[in-house]
């Protein structure tokens, strides 16, 4: 591991100043992802600024009826919170579908959405990767693509030597639920505070796959706010994976269904960011939710999907799989509503 300096400032303002002043500085919260990347050589900071004890660890009520999740609240605490379980079951379910009991006891609200992709080539410093080493190329194209993107990519076989190529997916379950809930991210940066809609926090690779989010260097997530939902809203998270526990999603679905209102759908493990299915939502607006209507809406959502060929058959299976998972998730929610 490369040597680094460690700092635990007195407060968040000082932490932001410390990171902003050192181009090769990173924030440390729970560390479940960062410490692993320090060992692998994926992260090579000169300065690690510890914010784990600086931000709030509380889950608190907001005046509008929503909830504020302090950045230092752990994934376990949020998943166990009575208000989260009763009002936002999709979030509790997503958190509980991720990682293990030990990791959820350590991982935080602020850190979870900022975890990096589990693309095997990103984690392997001996292989080219545009996300880890900009301009070096993409080793995933035509390689092991089972966990990779089918949405938000440029082509079924992008140029692996092009500096913008990246077919990685975002690994967080929590983030998919937060996208469906229209959560708001509270950020403190060198220029002050700002609020970012969660659906705009993560980026597509664009021309710079090394950047996962729109956060500028030195910007710190201090809390994530859950807006209030109309009484009677139902929500659920469904995750499909290769084994029953402790595995990343092949695809996942977060759905939020207000009574008599318009369904919100977010998809996980299909794109570089949590994918809000806005096209499908639009087609389902005011429509009756049936297997047929949902399938047709998802067909439209997935019309531009690009299956990635690769070792072991590639990832084309994700396209029908995510469609069926949305149908099954909404079927369960609507039958629950009419029961």
């Amino acid at each position: 591991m490369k040597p680094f300096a460690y700092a635990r400032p007195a407060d968040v303002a000082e932490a932001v100043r410390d990171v902003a002043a050192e181009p090769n500085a990173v924030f440390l919260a729970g560390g479940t992802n960062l410490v692993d990347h320090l060992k692998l050589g994926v992260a090579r900071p000169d300065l690690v600024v510890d914010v784990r004890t600086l931000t709030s660890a509380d889950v608190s009520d907001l005046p509008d009826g929503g909830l504020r999740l302090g950045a230092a609240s752990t994934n376990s605490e949020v998943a166990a919170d009575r208000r989260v379980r009763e009002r936002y079951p999709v979030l509790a379910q997503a958190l509980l579908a991720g990682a293990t009991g030990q990791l959820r006891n350590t991982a935080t609200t602020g850190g979870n959405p900022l975890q990096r992709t589990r693309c095997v080539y990103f984690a392997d410093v001996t292989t080219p990767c545009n996300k880890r080493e900009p301009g070096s190329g993409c080793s995933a194209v035509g390689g092991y693509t089972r966990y990779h993107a089918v949405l938000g990519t440029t082509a079924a076989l992008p140029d692996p030597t092009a500096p913008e190529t990246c077919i990685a997916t975002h690994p967080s379950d929590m983030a998919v639920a937060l996208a469906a809930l229209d959560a708001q991210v509270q950020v403190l940066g060198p220029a002050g505070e700002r609020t970012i809609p969660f659906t705009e926090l993560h980026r597509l690779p664009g021309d710079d796959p090394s950047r996962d989010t729109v956060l500028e260097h030195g910007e710190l997530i201090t809390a994530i706010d859950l807006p209030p939902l109309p009484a009677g809203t139902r929500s659920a998270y469904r995750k499909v994976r290769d084994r029953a526990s402790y595995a990343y999603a092949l695809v996942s679905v977060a759905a939020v269904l207000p009574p008599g209102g318009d369904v919100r759908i977010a998809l996980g493990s299909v794109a570089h960011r949590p994918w809000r299915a806005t096209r499908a939502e639009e087609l389902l607006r005011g429509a009756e939710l049936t297997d047929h209507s949902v399938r047709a809406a998802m067909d439209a959502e997935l019309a531009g999907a690009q299956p990635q060929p690769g070792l072991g058959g590639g990832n084309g299976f994700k396209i029908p799989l995510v469609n069926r998972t949305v149908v099954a998730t909404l079927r369960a929610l609507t039958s629950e509503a009419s029961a």
Partner: protein
Amino acid sequence: MDAQVTLTVDGTRHQLPVDTRTTLLDLMRERLGNTSPKKGCDHGQCGACTVLLDGQRQLPCLALAVAHDGAEIVTADGLAPAGELHPVQQAFLDADAFQCGYCTPGQVCSAVGVIEEAGRGWPSHATADVTAELSPEQALTHDEVAERMSGNLCRCAAYVNIVPAVQQAAGVQA
């Protein structure tokens, strides 16, 4: 780069300088001679190093020692006074819940955490309805224990006996 840390491990307070790169796991094993937490994968994937860090089951392989100045750690070695067994340790013996034993200290610490979390009514991925209250019995069915212990791998595959051991230690019907 060195930093000074103070830690309490199994009831004994230690103050020592550490390189900022040192994990809690390496500190305990290499500097304090406490080899109860085992190094399996060293990447947070196997659970062999599980300890109770400030009262909760966590992974010292993914924790920088410098970031846990002042922490209280209990390893499987410190769960019970010398010469005595913690109820979870006794249950692992009674249920024959291990073979080679390498993963066992981590399994035992994780089980202590699981029972405590179940007592607080925490749900899991195996919980059918996360909106409902959960009794310790409901939180420690076979499927619940298997899910809650899924962060602890056992290459001897003693799982079939680990689940009843956890249930026995918690005093719930297997």
